[in-house]
């Protein structure tokens, strides 16, 4: 049985070639092999959204994907959102609106929101609810999160 495979991918704009253990989730691969620990591990069964990353620009639950599936794809994690030391609009809006308490859900929330704004620059409340439907916040910052997403839309 092949235990490891070599994969090629882009992570936060950089091309990479790495070995990945078959059976390792993309979530573990990101945290343990790429050492990008901004992506969080919550439920590991697709229910909480703490592990959301952008794969080819789309928000997905990295706990339900295998590391090997990254081959040939483009991955963006929360570490890749800021450009030249400047935070992304959504990140700033989350700070301005205090859209978190503990912050555990924040990376997933921000990436899901970023992807929403990329496909719908002026989302309705319903669009925001849909886009964040898989992201739970145990601290209950939902109100502030929605405000932050709206504010980042308006700033465009």
């Amino acid at each position: 049985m092949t235990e490891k495979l070599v994969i090629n991918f882009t992570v936060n704009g950089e091309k990479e070639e790495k070995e990945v253990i078959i059976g390792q989730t993309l979530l573990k691969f990101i945290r343990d092999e790429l050492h990008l620990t901004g992506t969080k591990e919550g439920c590991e069964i697709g229910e909480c959204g703490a592990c959301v990353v952008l794969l080819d620009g789309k928000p997905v639950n990295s706990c339900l994907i295998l590391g090997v599936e990254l081959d040939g794809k483009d991955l963006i994690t929360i570490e890749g959102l800021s450009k030249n030391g400047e935070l992304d609009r959504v990140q700033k809006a989350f700070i301005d609106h205090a859209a978190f308490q503990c912050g555990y859900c924040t990376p997933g929330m921000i990436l899901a929101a970023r992807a929403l704004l990329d496909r719908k620059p002026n989302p309705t409340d319903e669009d925001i609810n849909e886009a964040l439907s898989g992201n739970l916040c145990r601290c209950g910052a939902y109100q502030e999160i929605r405000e932050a997403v709206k504010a980042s839309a308006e700033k465009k």
Partner: protein
Amino acid sequence: MLSYDYVKCNDLRLACQELEEGEQVYLLAGGTDLIVGMRGGKFSAKTLVDIKDVPELKVLEEDDRGITVGAAVTLNEAVVFAPIRDNVPILAEGCHSVGSYSIRNRATMAGNICNASPAADTAAPLYCLDALVNIKSSEGSRSMPIKDFFAGPGKTALNKGELVQSILIPRPYPEGKGVYLKASRTGSVDLATVGVAVQRWGEEVKIAIGAVAATPVRAFSVEKAINEKGEKNYADAARLVHDDISPITDLRGSREYRYHMVEVLVRRGLEQTLGV
């Protein structure tokens, strides 16, 4: 960590060959059932065959036979496909009610029916639309009505070596409104406690229900009352649904609660599609 082989397929013939020749081979589409299931010990795979980038399975098109949804098309892609939205919105509703937005970026309709949960949210709409499942193997192709495809909880009519290539929503499309009404414990990210699809076809209706029997079922008693006997009292008609279902008690709801909710949702579905 689980150990198995991983084969990435870029053509359908190869995927069929892997299925036919290997032991404990599982197809990996979106993985949203498979990966959770493997971790929980529900499946033990020796080989995963990744079909999500097989070009023949990415087909999403409409022609004179109807709408074809390839097995690697994600639910989000299906939801925004204009022919589905415009001609069979009940199916868009069913797809949209699965999990969350991020889940639907991976999850497929084929994976939903192949997992064969009686609660599969695309199933009841597909039953109401008389969908056909196009099946492929190294030997050839065949297709079967969706109602014959579901064989029991977690069981399909697929034989060894066979895979679902696509799902066809045949023409003619229904004339009239259709709704999918889902009761679940949370607003999103939960399986249906019960799911009721009611589709008007001209002056008649078709009704299908999920999570109330070993497979999704049609509510023939209710349909007969409306379509053949001309029953106009929808509450009375909805009560007959008790003859069509045999729900169980589980963590999502008791048997009694399911009986009650199905009746309520069937009545609402009739009101919304046929008019109060």
